[in-house]
């Protein structure tokens, strides 16, 4: 008998006592019943708690806000489909992933910042979710550079974890980000920036 059949047979025999069907209650909250303004405020509050940068702006002023965050110098990496208006006020060097070729890890290691959008954001936990969709790019793009700027339209913010998952396609490559890279492994002292980006700036667009 191969391992697969043997493990499955062991499990079936272990259940020989015929355990009863279990009803799964779903009495927990699905939505937080906040209005869009309250959601944006809650999200900003949670992000600040993680020591992520929070920046509120309008569609018209987005390019300026992004450029101000990039003042530290470049180069900047972006996914191929990042909306051009986001970069309108930035005059530094921009590396576009996949144009003409995918950026190598060594190149990305020398990049200062990366700019992306997101799939959805969860207010209660201060989480942004990337799914490789529009303006988000490959997973390594937001991982190797030391500074990640994420643009979040306030209409994409939901209240709770269940609402966030509802919006996602399970089979896409998903990354949930809640604050910058952090460790508490030494005497439980929080230190930011171990392997992932040290700085996370979230730009809330109204």
């Amino acid at each position: 008998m191969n391992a697969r059949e043997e493990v499955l047979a062991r499990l079936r025999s272990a259940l020989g006592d015929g355990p009863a069907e279990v009803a799964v209650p779903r009495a927990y909250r699905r939505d937080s019943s906040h209005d869009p303004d309250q959601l944006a405020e809650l999200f900003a509050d949670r992000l600040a708690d993680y020591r992520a940068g929070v920046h509120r702006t309008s569609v018209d002023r987005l390019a300026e806000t992004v450029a101000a965050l990039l003042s530290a110098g470049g180069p900047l990496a972006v996914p191929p489909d990042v909306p051009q208006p986001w970069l309108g006020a930035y005059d530094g060097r921009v590396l576009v992933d996949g144009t003409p070729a995918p950026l190598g890890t060594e190149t990305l290691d020398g990049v200062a910042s990366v700019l992306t959008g997101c799939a959805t954001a969860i207010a209660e936990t201060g989480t942004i979710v990337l799914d490789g969709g529009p303006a988000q790019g490959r997973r390594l793009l937001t991982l190797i550079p030391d500074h990640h700027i994420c643009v979040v339209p306030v209409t994409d913010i939901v209240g709770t974890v269940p609402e966030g998952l509802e919006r996602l396609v399970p089979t896409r490559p998903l990354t949930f980000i809640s604050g910058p890279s952090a460790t508490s492994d030494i005497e439980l002292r929080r230190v930011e920036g171990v392997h992932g980006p040290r700085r996370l700036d979230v730009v809330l667009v109204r």
Partner: protein
Amino acid sequence: MNAAHGKGHLYGPARFERAARTELAKPQLRENLRHATHTIRDKRAEVVDELPDWEQLRESGRAIKAQVARRLPELLERFEAAAVRAGATVHWARDAEEACRIVTGLVQETGASEAVKVKSMTTQEIGLNEALEAAGIGAYETDLAELIVQLADDASSHILVPAIHYNREEIRDIFRQRMPGAADTLSDAPEELAEAARTHLRRRFLSARVAVSGANFAVADTGTLVVVESEGNGRMCLTLPDTLISVVGIDKLVPSFADLEVYLQLLPRSSTGERMNPYTSLWTGVTPGDGPQRMHIVLLDNGRSATLADPVGRQALSCIRCSACLNVCPVYERTGGHAYGSVYPGPIGAIISPQLTGVAENTSLPYASSLCGACNDVCPVKIDITDVLVRLRGQAVDSKRGSPSAERVAMRLLSWVMSDPRRYDRALRAARRGTAPLAALLGGRRTIRHLPWPLSAWTSSRDAPLPAAESFREWWQREQAQRGETP
């Protein structure tokens, strides 16, 4: 089909009570542990209080896992089919040895001589690093705490914060002596130590061809795996190498993607006391052009099917490895994780390890508890840990029933004495008379620290009290007599 028990790093060289004695003699360790466990438990309480529906989430978390246990064979087949459809290769392993053999073979196939590792209890359970190293493959832990423990050639002492038994000076010394490239001038500031680890591992991440991970959850409907972490080392391992090998205990299944909405709320709040951990990665097979292009999943039994066979004990398979029970346990707080001998310490370890190995192989662990029940109260999936402990104690006694025991002889004698009130009174009086000279010698202290053999087994870890100067019956009779009432 008979149940088969698991092997691996699930026992220590010494029984718990002996190992605990060594650990109890380290005041610095106790101080570190007390600080750590109390800090985490306070943070946890705060973020749990924030959720008005915490109890409903716990109840759903418990029920989903009970459902999973009931449907496990079917869910595993469903998971396998979905993962294969998404481009993964699925392997099955009966035990630790078989899993190590499969992973070693898969790494060898790639021609790589090293692999980077995401922190994983399951790979520690099966002793994968040792197996890879025996085959000439370097296995590098990339989680900061696991890196510290690996460099120190030590074992983890906590599920969530494995290096919690070290303070910053000790970590600085380990880095200075053991980490290639670490400066002799490295200070003990946590920021500087984390930076040293970042520099040390950066090249390795960027050039790694093979990564090995575990998984926190595996979704049956979609074939999706989930890894929860904080530092980004997990994302590095799950994104950069071309080949990813994930060793997944068959207890990690959840039926549907939507079920994650329960556990992604319960796990971070229960473990690190955060609303959400910094990074959670979910991947389903292979995504062309993004991340690993070869994906292997090793489904591991190693005693989990044997655990499933016990109608009471099977609830241990619901554990999501949050470690909240360690941080509230008075026994763990004093002994630390090493005393348990297994990679799973604390209250949950005391029920998981003996069930995976078979109770006869691990008879002391079910006693590593005061049965106070604090662990039951914090468990996010409502495992009745004390109920399972008591059941396992029964099984441990049964497993030794054939051989005589001093304890059993003493208990039988005591039961004979106590079954007759006059006999019991006489025995108490005799005990008092017999120990009266001792009371004078002890100068007012009412406890004896060391009794002669065989009673020394009792006093090795506690003091023996002297019999009270007067029994309750005697006191009652005297009081009544003084009030002029006939007793």
